[in-house]
């Protein structure tokens, strides 16, 4: 089935969302970024209308040829009410992009987000370590 479903995410920062998608295995050059949400297509190349009668649209898109075999486009649409990006995932692809995948995306997004925040605060990034089910990110404060 190529029916699209919408899932809320905690992603507010577009660049961090893109970093998270890269961390989840997608290449930056395969991630489309649109100020105005663009149409999503199913595995046959047909424009779909499941989440919106005017067409399923997204601002951040991974086209189906980069998602996997017989896949549909993967999209993230900015929700103007919440300021966060809603994930638009087809029922067919929800086997791959399931709750576990969304949890991984959330973790990767948080990593990108705190790294960006540390940088904006002028902290010197020392590194990122993943162990025992946790990611530890460390900075040195050289501002003083």
């Amino acid at each position: 089935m190529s029916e699209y479903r919408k899932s809320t995410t905690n992603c507010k920062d577009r660049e961090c969302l893109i970093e998270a998608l890269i961390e989840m295995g997608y290449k930056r050059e395969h991630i489309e970024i649109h100020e105005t949400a663009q149409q999503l297509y199913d595995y046959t190349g047909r424009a779909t209308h499941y989440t919106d009668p005017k067409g399923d649209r997204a601002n951040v898109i991974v086209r189906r040829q980069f998602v996997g075999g017989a896949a549909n486009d993967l999209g993230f649409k900015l929700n103007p009410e919440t300021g966060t990006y809603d994930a638009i995932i087809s029922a067919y692809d929800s086997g791959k992009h399931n709750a576990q995948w969304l949890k991984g995306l959330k973790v990767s997004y948080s990593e990108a987000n705190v790294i960006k925040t540390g940088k904006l605060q002028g902290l010197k990034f020392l590194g990122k370590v993943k162990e025992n089910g946790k990611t530890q990110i460390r900075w040195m404060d050289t501002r003083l």
Partner: protein
Amino acid sequence: MAKFVTATIDHETAEVEIDLAGYKGKGCHALQDAFSKALGGKTVVEKKKPEFNAVVTGKTCITR
């Protein structure tokens, strides 16, 4: 002496903990505010947790 900031992200819950051990006053509040905003406006709670770091003790800011 240089200060260190550590963020710990739990892969199961996706909760983020920011350790600001050694910070106090304006410096602590500025970082608290910045990370709090980045983490979706969640309140950053100050919590004394001296056992968190055996070398550098002080206040630890935890986001929930």
